[in-house]
């Protein structure tokens, strides 16, 4: 397969590092037995295990999730590869427990489309976890009817390789969409979303924490488009970069002429753990309506040396003090996760990443 990738000369891809993808696309997965036991949070809902993009039926209990061809297509340069078989969740009631999806990759590349359709008043919650090696490429289409409510939590914990996510959502009147992403593994990432607040009074929240070390590149590119009025959008992102890693967040809010009384807020903050690391933050507003409230903040800094000394003077070793302050920096982006056990798991994953940082000295 000839892999055509966007160039960093394109503004939307300027911070991307897709250099690993051609080799991964050409390689084959190692396959073999995988153990998904550790990936489940035990939330009591349906479970789906995808190994290299294919459902492992024995390890799955898909519940309301249907497998097969997916009615989703995208012109997005990476997501357009995610065609054919995938999963679809169509709900017209309230799902009692979150759906857990584990994506385990064993090398090479896998592409998987998905579609989530919530009818008016429907509610669902999904947790997706990415582990292993290789390139996991995902397209997720979302359609929320009036007053529907979807929450998503995405953990990017792959050891090596690359995870690319493309979310395209259409959020209906007074519907609620919330997605929280944690990038805490060793793989590179591109988290890409185009969320349209299509109905009046729609709500969209997308944010998270991207933790990068070594040569790692994490990148989020989010566009929230307010098409009609009275909508509320929130983006709280925290980026941490150590060594010569880079974490980049481009977050745009577009407000159409019809979208009066829009309330948009972006809070982008970066933390450099070493001077050789990089954090890129690009908050953007494009407003065509005249009665809107849009706030955005972006700031990059280092750990507060006064706070470090305060912690150390109480007996906390320097590495643990750094980890504690870094944890404090990222945790407010993860505390937006509504479900306690999911939030706890994400916070624990972030803490584990920080422990690794502690051991490196």
């Amino acid at each position, binding site marked *: 397969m000839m892999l055509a990738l966007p160039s960093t000369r394109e503004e939307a891809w300027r911070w991307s590092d897709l250099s690993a993808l051609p080799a991964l696309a050409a390689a084959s997965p190692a396959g073999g037995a995988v153990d998904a036991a550790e990936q489940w949070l035990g939330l009591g809902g349906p479970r789906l295990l995808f190994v290299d993009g294919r459902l492992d039926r024995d390890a799955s209990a898909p519940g309301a999730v249907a497998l097969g061809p997916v009615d989703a297509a995208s012109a997005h340069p990476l997501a357009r590869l995610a065609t054919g078989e995938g999963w679809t969740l169509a709900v017209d009631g309230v799902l009692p427990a979150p759906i857990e999806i584990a994506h385990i990759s064993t090398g090479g590349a896998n592409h998987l489309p998905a579609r989530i359709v919530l009818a008016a008043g429907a509610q669902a919650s999904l947790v997706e976890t990415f582990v292993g090696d290789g390139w996991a490429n995902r397209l997720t289409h979302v359609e929320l009817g009036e007053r529907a409510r979807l929450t998503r939590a995405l953990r990017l914990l792959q050891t090596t390789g690359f995870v690319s996510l493309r979310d395209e959502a259409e959020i209906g009147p007074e519907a609620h969409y919330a997605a929280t992403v944690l990038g805490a593994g060793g793989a590179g990432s591109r988290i890409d979303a185009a969320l349209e607040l299509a109905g009046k009074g729609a709500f969209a929240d997308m944010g998270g924490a991207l933790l990068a070390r070594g040569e790692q590149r994490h990148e989020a590119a989010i566009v929230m488009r307010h098409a009609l009025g009275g909508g509320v959008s929130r983006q709280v992102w925290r980026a941490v970069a150590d060594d010569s890693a880079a974490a980049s967040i481009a977050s745009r809010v577009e407000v159409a002429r019809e979208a009066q009384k829009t309330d948009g807020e972006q809070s982008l903050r970066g933390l450099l753990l070493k001077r050789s690391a990089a954090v890129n933050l690009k908050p953007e507003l494009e407003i065509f309506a005249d009665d809107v409230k849009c706030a955005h903040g972006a700031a990059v800094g280092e750990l*507060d*040396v*006064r*706070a470090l*000394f*305060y*912690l*150390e*003077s*109480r*007996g*906390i*070793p*320097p590495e*643990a*003090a750094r980890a*504690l*302050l870094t*944890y*404090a*920096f990222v*945790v*407010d982006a993860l505390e937006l996760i509504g479900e306690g056990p999911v939030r706890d798991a994400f916070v624990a994953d972030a803490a584990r990443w920080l422990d690794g940082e502690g051991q490196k000295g």
Partner: protein
Amino acid sequence: MTNQMLKIDNLHATVADKPILKGLTLSLNPGEIHAIMGPNGAGKSTLSYVLGGRPGYAVTDGTVTLDGKDLLALEPHERAAAGLFLGFQYPVEIPGVSNVQFLRTALNAQRKARGEEELSAGAFLKIARAEADALGLERDMLKRPVNVGFSGGEKKRNEMVQMGIIAPRLAILDETDSGLDIDALRVVGEGINRIMRKPDKAVLLITHYQRLLDYVKPDFVHVLADGRIVRSGGAELALELEREGYVDIAA
């Protein structure tokens, strides 16, 4: 002589290459409370930071030992584990870290460094609540982020709660009385006595004013001026300073 706890000998220190401490000599024995008074710019806070090991405070000459061990060779967290507690003049706000999390991490790190067993969450909370109650700090504030949104007085009480939980052998308290109203001053003074007035502990109180010394009676009072101890005496020296000011005495 043999059981000196803290021994500072001819200490010279600079901040940004500027000499601040210029040959300071001072010894504390277990069971003693010493007060250091002096005008602004004398080097009082520099002394506390040098003893605590704050980066940017460079020792250029002299020695400091704690229980006979070279204190200056230790990292700040190792000094804490060795029994040193530094009460900050301006306690630092740490958003996102709760008081409980901070202090439990600190106490257990110290215990671990000393080869002692870590405290369980329950055992720790019991101690923390008792200290908060004793110092009139709302228990609720233990759950709040460290010093965030605390008033000046609450921050100082919180320093004392920390001291009570950590139970150090030697406390260096830098202007713990500043920013306190008269009731808080009494509570904090009583806290210092309760926690530190013991045969095996010692306190170095750094203060501008005599008023804290009404509650915490010092065994010795020293006047620090231009980086040196220029006069030492008993508790009565503090009263004399309050009456006559530093100018004549330091001269």
